[in-house]
C-alpha cells in the first residue's frame, strides 16, 4: 500500500468514522459518494459503535508476507448494532476461542509495515470482550 493511499484512509481506519445519509438515514462504513438506498449525495459523519458481534469468521494458516509469523490468526466479519459490517482480524485470541455471536470491542493496532525501514500502517482490529 502506498503512503498517499495510507494517508487518505487514515481517519476512517483510526477512528472507525463512517457516514449517515441525510436523505434516508442509512449508515455506511467505509464512506461512499452516493447512497445505494436513495441515491442521495448528502452525508453527515457517523462514528461506529465501540463494540459489535462476530457474524462469521475464518482461521488463516498461510498469511501474507507481513503476517506470516502471526499464523494461525482469525479474521471475522463483525456487525455493529447499526447494521454496518466490517471485516477485520480478531486479536489476542486462539482460533478455538472464537465463535459466531461473540461480542468484540474495537482496538487500535498496527495493521502492517513496509519492512523494518518502511512506513507503519495503523488502524482498527477487534478483540473479544
Amino acid at each position, binding site marked *: 500500500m502506498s503512503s498517499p493511499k495510507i494517508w487518505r484512509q*487514515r481517519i476512517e481506519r*483510526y477512528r472507525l468514522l463512517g457516514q449517515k445519509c441525510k436523505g434516508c438515514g442509512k449508515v455506511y462504513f467505509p464512506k461512499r459518494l452516493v447512497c445505494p438506498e436513495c441515491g442521495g449525495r448528502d452525508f453527515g459523519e457517523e462514528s461506529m459503535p465501540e463494540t459489535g458481534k462476530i457474524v462469521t469468521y475464518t482461521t488463516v494458516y498461510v498469511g501474507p508476507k507481513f503476517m506470516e509469523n502471526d499464523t494461525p490468526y482469525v479474521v471475522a466479519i463483525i456487525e455493529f448494532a447499526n447494521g454496518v459490517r466490517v471485516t477485520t482480524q480478531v*486479536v*489476542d485470541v486462539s482460533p478455538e476461542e472464537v465463535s459466531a455471536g461473540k461480542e468484540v470491542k474495537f*482496538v*487500535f*493496532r*498496527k495493521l502492517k509495515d513496509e519492512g523494518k525501514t518502511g512506513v507503519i500502517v*495503523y488502524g482498527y482490529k477487534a478483540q473479544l470482550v
Partner: protein
Amino acid sequence: MVGIVGYGSYVPRYRIKVEDIANQWGRDPEVIKRGLMVNEKTVPGTDEDTITISVEAGRNALKRAGIDPRLIGSCYVGSESHPYAVKPSGTIVAEALGITPEVHVADFEFACKAGTEAMWVAYNEVKSGELQYALAIGTDTSQGAPGDALEYTASAGGTAYIFGKEKVVAEVVETFSYTSDTPDFWRREGAFYPRHAGRFTGEPAYFKHVYNAGVGILKKAKMKPEDFAYAVFHMPNGKFPQTIGKKLGFSKEQIEPGWVVPYMGNTYSGSSPTGLSATFDVSKPGDMVFIVSFGSGAGSDAFIFKVTERIDEVRNLAPKVREMLDNNKIYLDYGKYAKFREKIILNE
C-alpha cells in the same frame, strides 16, 4: 483550579512469568523473584507498540474527561520506544484521538520519566492560560537484552492524563524536579537494547534523584509524609520503590495501591504514571497523592495532587489498572516471548 480532568491506562493482555525467563537462563527463579519482587510482566502483542498503547490509554482518558477532543491544544507522548526515530508518535496518536489539526504535538524522551515531564509541560500550558486542555502520555514497550537483569522486568503499558481547569479530578497542588548528568542507563542511537551500569543505577541514580525530588517537593509544599493518603514512585523493580518510600517516611500501606510492578513489570515511561492511575482508581475525595518519577540520565519529577469529589463520577467510566492486570491474561512461554519481542533473527 488546574489539574487532571481525565486519566486512562492501558496494559496488553500478554504476560510472561519471571520463572520462565529465569529457567531459560539457568537462574534460580525464587532468588530472582525475591530479589526483584516481581512475579510476571506484561508483553506487547506483535501488533502493539508505543503508539497503539498511547491511543488506547488516551481513549480511556477521554472517556473519563468527557470532553470534545478538539478542545485539547497539545498532545505529548513520552517514551523511550517510539516506533519511528524520525516521525512523531504524537501525530498518529492525536489523529486517532480526534484532536487534530489545531494542536501542538511533540514526542518526549527522558528514559523512564518522559511521561511525567510531558505531564509537567501539559499542566503548565493550562496553568498559564495558553490552552484549555492539554494531553500528556507516558508509554513504553520496554527493551531488555536477553539474559540481562532488565529482561525480568522490561514490560509494556501506558497512561494518559488530560489537564484542564474545569471538572478537575485531581488538582495539582505542587510540582518539583531534580536533575543531574548521571550515566546510569542508556541506549545509543541504533542500538537495539539499552545498557546499564549495574549497581550504579541504585544509589547515585534512582535513590539520589527520587529522594531529593521527594524531599524538595515536601519542603516546597510545607507538607509531611503523613499528610498523604497515597504515594507512588517509579518502579524499576518491586524493591526500589519500597526502599525509597520507607526512607522518605511513607508506609507500605500508602505505597500499596500504586505498587503495580509485581504483576506489570517496569513499563519505563509508563511506570509511575500507571501507578498513579491505579492509585486514583481507589482514591477518595480529599485524598492527597504524592508521586515521584525517575528517568535515567538522570532526573525525577515530583507532583502533589489533591483528589476532588469528581473522582467518584469518573472512576468507572474506563477500565481500572488492577482490572486490566488481573483479567484476560494470556501467558507466553519464553520461545513465544522471544518471537513477540523480535529477539529471534529472521531472514528479511
